[in-house]
């Protein structure tokens, strides 16, 4: 590969194996891996791909949950880790320019040093890249109060699948010139262009934060409290719900010191100025007690707050102890329908007799629902699939969406038609063709079902 130099291309099978997976943990061997150093090099690679008809699959850190970085139809994996400069942090205009390989957590720390705040916080932030975050429109607990990646990206430099380099959007707070290509590309899962620069807006860092935990004797009471808090006009920075099955999993290897009879827990973080926060915490405690929360505790130190949030972070891996295969969905319902969702989940669990474990960003209606099954037991994988289908039907009936922050990729592609009409899907495919007439960039994703072939 003359374009990027010999040292930036991998073709040996052993290295390719290391680029055959992402966080979906399925494996598709690419033909080559390239590490371009500039937008121009990426443009050249894409022009070559159009001439020679090979697929190009953009990859950041490979931490996505829907297979966006998988080379399902072979081709060249294009890794953005070399584009890792924070070009500029402008404290006067509260903006920054970053390259796609910068890690989300590193960027947050850099802006924090200047008294600024970049709120999107996917739980992978310590290793996921901003390019990947933008391509997947990543969310996180902060979504409730501060929105998701999309809400902070004001413009992009993008290499189109046909090899032209364009700049979208603005570097100002407002801008309405032409179609909003920025929003189209953010969340397009690497199918419409390769992001080479991201223009983001920042906000001032909140003065202080405060964390509290509340334990409930039923999931109904807990989920109604979520609706109560939102209705009361208080918007916490984070509002996370943890169900009894999750609590049980975590407590097997980490003492939680929760009272017996805890069926569900709310973890709440407020931020802002201390006086307002005091009033808000009092009000939230009152709302919790109205729903018969029998245990409410405020973290007194940063250390205590950290310990509480570790409970939340420990859930996803703790589920692995069940030694079951996990289908991790990230559905969203209107916040007022959270109690209905839990009611329906109970019915689904009873009907199919499979463990369904839920936790997540209840405050914005976004829940991680995990369907657990034993791959080796006959009929269980099919049963799990039926659970997922019924879950999605429920979510759509409740006015929700089947993915809040992970995207479609390959894992949810088979269900796309449950939420979108044929006309809508056809329009999206026409957009894809307009960008990428030869179907070079990340082919086979979003619209084409779940591929079976692995090596």
């Amino acid at each position: 590969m003359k374009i990027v130099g010999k040292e930036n291309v991998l073709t040996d099978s052993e290295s390719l194996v290391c680029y055959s997976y992402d966080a979906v943990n399925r494996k598709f061997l690419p033909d080559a891996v390239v590490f371009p150093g500039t937008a121009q090099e990426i443009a050249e690679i894409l022009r070559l791909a159009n001439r020679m008809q090979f697929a190009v699959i953009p990859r950041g850190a490979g931490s996505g949950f829907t297979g966006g970085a998988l080379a399902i139809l072979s081709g060249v994996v294009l890794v953005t880790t070399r584009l890792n400069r924070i070009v500029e942090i402008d404290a006067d205009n509260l903006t920054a320019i970053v390259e796609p390989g910068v890690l989300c957590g590193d960027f947050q720390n850099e802006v924090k040093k200047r008294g600024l705040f970049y709120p999107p916080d996917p739980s992978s932030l310590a290793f996921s890249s901003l390019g990947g975050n933008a391509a997947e429109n990543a969310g996180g607990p902060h979504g409730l109060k501060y929105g998701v990646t999309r809400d902070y990206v004001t413009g992009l430099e993008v290499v189109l699948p046909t090899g032209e380099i364009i700049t979208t959007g603005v570097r100002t707070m407002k801008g309405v010139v032409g179609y909003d290509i920025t929003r189209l590309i953010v969340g397009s899962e690497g199918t419409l262009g390769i992001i080479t620069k991201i223009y983001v807006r920042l906000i001032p860092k909140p003065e202080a934060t405060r964390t509290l935990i509340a334990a409930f004797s039923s999931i109904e009471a807990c989920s109604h409290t979520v609706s109560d808090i939102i209705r009361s006009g208080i918007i916490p920075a984070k509002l996370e719900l943890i169900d009894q099955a999750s609590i049980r999993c975590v407590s097997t290897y980490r003492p939680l010191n929760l009272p017996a009879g805890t069926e569900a827990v709310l973890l709440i973080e407020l931020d802002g100025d201390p006086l307002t926060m005091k009033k808000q915490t009092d009000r939230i405690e009152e709302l919790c007690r109205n729903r018969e929360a029998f245990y409410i505790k405020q973290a007194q130190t940063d250390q205590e707050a950290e310990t509480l949030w570790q409970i939340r972070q420990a859930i996803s891996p703790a589920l692995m102890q069940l030694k079951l295969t996990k289908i991790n969905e990230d559905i969203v319902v209107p916040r007022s329908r959270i109690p209905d969702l839990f009611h329906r989940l109970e019915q689904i669990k009873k009907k199919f007799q499979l463990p369904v474990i839920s936790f997540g960003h209840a405050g914005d209606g976004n829940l991680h629902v995990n369907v657990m099954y034993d791959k080796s037991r006959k009929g269980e994988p099919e049963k799990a699939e039926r659970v997922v289908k019924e879950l999605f039907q429920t979510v759509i009936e409740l006015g929700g969406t089947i993915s809040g922050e992970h995207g479609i990729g390959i894992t949810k592609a088979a269900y796309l038609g449950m939420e979108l009409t044929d006309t809508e899907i056809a329009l999206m495919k026409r957009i894809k063709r307009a960008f990428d007439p030869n179907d070079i960039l990340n082919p086979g994703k979003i619209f084409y079902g779940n591929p079976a072939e692995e090596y």
Partner: protein
Amino acid sequence: MEGKPNHNLTIESVDSLASEAAACVKCGRCLSVCPIYRETGREPQTARGKIALIEAAASGSLSEANINDILSCCLLCGACTEICPNMVPAYELIRKARTIFTSRRNSALAYKTFLSRILPFPQRLDRLYQAGKALEPLLLKKVPLESGLYYRLPRGREKSARIIPALAQQSFLDVRRKRSQPHHPGALLFIGCVANYILPGIAEAALALLEHLGIPVVIPPEQSCCGLMASGAGEIEAARQIARRTIDAFAGEESVPIVAFCSSCSAHLKQYPALFEDKSSRQKALAFSQRVKDLSELLVDAGLPAMKNFQAEEQVRFTFHDPCHLRRAQGIIMQPRELLRAIRGAEFVETGQENLCCGSGGSFDVSHYDLSLQIFRRRVRSIEEAGIDTVVTSCMGCLMQFQDGFHAMNKQQAVKHLAEVLKQALVE
């Protein structure tokens, strides 16, 4: 594809590794702490990449040579293992995979010969040492010897500007052999290669500290290398032989603690049981390893900080660099700090980046010198930002990495071993 599948290899062994590896769900969390990945952004260097490779190797047709290259690019620092949400033992898997895939490695033949034929036998090591002394003016000035001993010699391809510590005039154990030893020891001291042949002053300092506490110390004369280098390189048989010799050398005083002042040695001595599969060897190793203590651990247990008799000669600002083999492998974090904080007239400072590896990683600093130095630079930035004059550490690998790295970067900071610093500050 070059190379062929290894037929000497029992399929079960790769398969059993692959089944241990199955708990890895490829979430990518290990990427956030891998010192090598943080510099290069290359997936094969991560635990996740290596685990995928182990899984793929179980199913067949990959090149041994390439697998070895990828497996060799790891510091065995254990950061991935510490952070893994599923508690996948990546450190162990990579070490074991090296054992399996190294069996047909034909590069670095001399290195392998050294590990398996010479290292386990102190007399042969001594003879080589004598030869090395004679050749030193010619040979050692040009050969990268920075962080280890002769097992780092015959590798040919590394030509670098490493500074090379001169060999001591006489090995520490040779000097001590001529002296009488106490009859009722309170501790048995393990010396290790670097102190024995290159930096005997550190062994003297450790000895002085123990004697200051009134502990009668015996230095078993038949001891040699701990075997960490052999184990890390996947030379499992050599590592076992060395372990057996060490266990024998320290036999006979069953209730007396064994103290090692190099934290990589103490970590490896504690891990001896994992080297053996048969029950009786394992139990013997367990009885041995349960007696092992890192020097910092023993000094704190024996109440040295409370004696309050340390005074710094000059006002210095120092920090403790945690060796991965102390912090992660042994979970010892507070003891060295407690000791250093007991020194009056010196200022102990944390850099806030205590989990960073120095980049030495056994023989990694020889096989991947540039990368090793790049990882070192990140650690140095944290040290400079904290305004440190002296870095204190307790692993010979880290110590020599800092010596060479500071030199290569033209820095004025010093590096010292914990035992040296304490000994110098001791008020008699």
